[in-house]
């Protein structure tokens, strides 16, 4: 079995299993903790409505905090959009998703994806530099932060290298790319990258509680 077969076969399979098991484990391990009823008289309906509201509204910054957070927010949004675009609009990826899920959508030209990928890596570097240099971030950062950064950006880098080649065989590069994705999938549920799904739980929880009080969300 060559490297690519290994990557496309057992490695990515195991990674998906780990992702699935780990994510559900973490999610349900949280959701099935005690949920005490709130007996206080609500000011207004909270619950699901409040949860959905905050899941949506917290995507935006309150004007009062804009100035203080604009740099990180712009970088973070660029990173997320960049990852989204490169993952979901690169045609070979779409082909892959179509094969798995059966649905297809239009992609973007490769040079656009390449550019977005380069920007994504650049922004990630800027965020890393900020994490290392900003006193607050340096203090609160731990292994998870740095390793998650590495694991997230690795597939982008291995993807970007593919058209450049550096004299390495395409199969080897593709295999490395898939390995890096597998690493991401395996690491995700056990790290801060789980915020991909936990963000909905934490925002939703706050929304449900505070909206019920009529408090600011």
């Amino acid at each position: 079995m060559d490297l690519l077969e290994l990557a496309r076969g057992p490695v990515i399979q195991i990674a998906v299993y780990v992702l699935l098991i780990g994510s559900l484990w973490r999610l349900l391990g949280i959701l099935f903790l005690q949920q005490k009823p709130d007996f206080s008289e609500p000011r207004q309906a909270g619950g699901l409505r409040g949860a959905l509201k905050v899941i949506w509204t917290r995507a935006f910054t309150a004007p009062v905090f804009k100035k203080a957070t604009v740099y990180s927010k712009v970088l973070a949004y660029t990173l997320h959009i960049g990852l989204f675009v490169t993952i979901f609009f690169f045609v070979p990826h779409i082909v892959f998703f179509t094969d798995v899920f059966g649905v297809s959508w239009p992609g973007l030209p490769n040079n656009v994806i390449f550019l977005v990928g380069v920007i994504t890596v650049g922004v990630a570097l800027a965020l890393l530099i900020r994490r290392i240099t900003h006193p607050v971030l340096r203090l609160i950062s731990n292994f998870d932060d740095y390793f998650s950064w590495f694991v997230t950006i690795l597939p982008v880098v291995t993807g970007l290298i593919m058209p450049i080649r550096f004299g390495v065989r395409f199969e080897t590069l593709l295999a490395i790319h898939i390995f890096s994705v597998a690493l991401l999938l395996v690491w995700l549920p056990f790290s801060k990258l789980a915020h991909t799904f936990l963000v909905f739980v934490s925002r939703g929880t706050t929304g449900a509680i505070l909206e019920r009080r009529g408090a600011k969300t």
Partner: protein
Amino acid sequence: MSTSELDVKNAFDMESKRLSIKAPEIRYDKQGDTPDEERVQKAMLHFVKDFGTAAAAYLDSCIHCGMCAEACHYYVATGDPKYTPIWKLEPFKQAYKREASPFAFFYRKFGLKKKVTVEELEEWQHLIYDSCTVCGRCSLICPMGIDIASLVSTARHGMFKAGLVPHELHAVAERAEIDGSPLGVTPKVFEERLEWMEDEHDVEINLNKDKADILVVISSIEIQKYPAAFAATAKVLNAVGESWTYRSDGFEATNFGLLSGNLDWQRDISMRIIDAAVKVGAKMVLLPECGHAYMALRWMGANMYGKPLPFKVRHVSEYLADVLNSGKLKVKKVDKSVTFHDPCQISRRGGATQAPRDILKHLGVDLRELPNGGDYNWCCGGGGGVVTIHRADELRYKVFKLKMDQVEATEAETLLSSCANCRQNFDDCQNHYDWKYTADSLLELVADNLQEEKA
């Protein structure tokens, strides 16, 4: 353990421990003589014992973006990264990871998270108590929607069990539990002060009626420092013509059980009011101008009670807005410019932001909102029990400068608030800085400008 046994160990040396944190020149307090190991164990276990889905989701979804620092008055005023709100929970993450997180088994089995030491907890006493007013401003900036303030309250549960509470806060809480008032206001003192105000202001103040629609409570701060609140409340309620009463067996609105982190005391203190209200058949408990009293009874009371309360709970500003809006109470116009300081627990955390604005509209004042005020208002810096902790004074004064700038920017003639604890802090800082603004009571402004029903 007793409050008199002030077990003041010397401030511990942090310099050798953490490079990024400057050693504060403050002492750390311990109650009792529990062995350190056990203190840590208790702090950890009692932090997580009430952990439900909400708290777990919060601690698990933090991405360490550090934005919460920008919302915290302690960080903004000092620039010291240790005041980053989520960092205040750092040692407690270990407890969560080991005890209640989905992968707790692995954390316990393989010791994945560094063990917390008692020295760290002592250090964190400063972060959990001295430099957090539980104002919840950070909860609004967090992109993950984490309610960090609620986590700090939970952390205090652990700290209390471990006997790692600042002495003054522990002392007032213990006094509140034993004597019924954090400031030593016994029922006898309460009654004396009430009667004094009744005479002084020539107003009928109902006390210990058997039946009443409204049970009115008051904070010890008002009793001792702003007793005019007795008269102001009575004037308003009499003017509306309510059936109401104060009760000697349930008058204290403050809840230092909540602030110090003792859940049992919090329940005891809340139950005094609840029992009294049930006894008089109250339809409403009217809370005084006190921020955390609102949080304790309005939003946590029923959960202490274990079922829905058989009465409504309203802050006096909500009540005033209500009777003014419905026309049951009429006020004269007041011709002055006013700015209003929103108490965190009532407005941002409690949801009653609109009420004071309705009242001020009826008074016809020139309301000049604080810049970035309302729900995003800077905390006065004295909430969450911080004002009681003397060693935190210097920091408190430093942080108050934010408040001063904010108030001064409005150029209003009068500063109002609806929380005696805020007003107390304003007074103290006004004194410290020789500042021109005094925080006045919103309730008193209303009471002083009632339209006499009959000429």
